[in-house]
């Protein structure tokens, strides 16, 4: 029969592991988001190069800038939502670990 200290220590480890897994998932997601935006910028630059000699090129430059900003902002929202969701899940998991402890601590 584990002692209360051992139960608490084990639960603490579980919570830390939970946080660590979710943090690494978030990190991977941030990297993917940054790569996605970088690819988008390259694609816009390529499209812009096709428009160089066309009428309205200045408008095209502004449109490309706007698209890049909208894309990056959209990604920021996706990542922020993921962050919120992760925090909520982490809090839920931590609470359920704590709740499981209560009967064991008698």
């Amino acid at each position, binding site marked *: 029969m584990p002692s209360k200290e051992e139960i608490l220590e084990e639960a*603490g480890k579980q919570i830390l592991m939970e946080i660590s897994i979710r943090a690494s998932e978030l990190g991977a997601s941030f990297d993917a988001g940054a790569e996605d935006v970088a690819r988008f910028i390259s694609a816009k630059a390529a499209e812009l190069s096709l428009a160089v000699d*066309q009428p309205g090129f200045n408008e095209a430059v502004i449109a490309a800038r706007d*698209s890049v900003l909208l894309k990056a902002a*959209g990604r920021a929202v996706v990542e922020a*939502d993921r962050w919120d969701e992760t*925090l909520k899940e*982490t809090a839920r998991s931590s609470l359920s670990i704590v709740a499981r402890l209560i009967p064991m601590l008698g």
Partner: protein
Amino acid sequence: MPSFVRPLGLVFFMAIAGVPAITVVSTSGCAGKAAREEVLVPAMRLASYGVEDDALVGVETLPLEIQEANRLIVKKFFGIIRDGDDAGIRLEAIGYWGRVRELADTGIEAKLEDEVVGESVAKLLSDRVSDFDRALRAYITRSPAMVD
């Protein structure tokens, strides 16, 4: 061990393990809301000038008798976006967007027909309208922190 020590032990454990996570959620749990207000709205505001220009060209392609009403819709929509008011965007602007988008697309076609812009330029202008659409939809989708 005195009986009052047990709940104290549990409270201490929650303080070191469970509570920080909850505290983080309650203080930073609205990252999505902040990203919408502090990143997405400014980006939409900046892009709004170009999309508005396209939509106003679209208005000019309409029969004269309905131009003014459509111009008002365009002005009203972009006014709300630039104002950045959350309720205004969610409840009012979204209702105008379908019409404004049609006008912007029509305006880009008109610019292309009149050779004001070339094909590749028109494609970039159209993409901006689509990107604006996606941004607006991302804005009105509530963040997980706002749902609960």
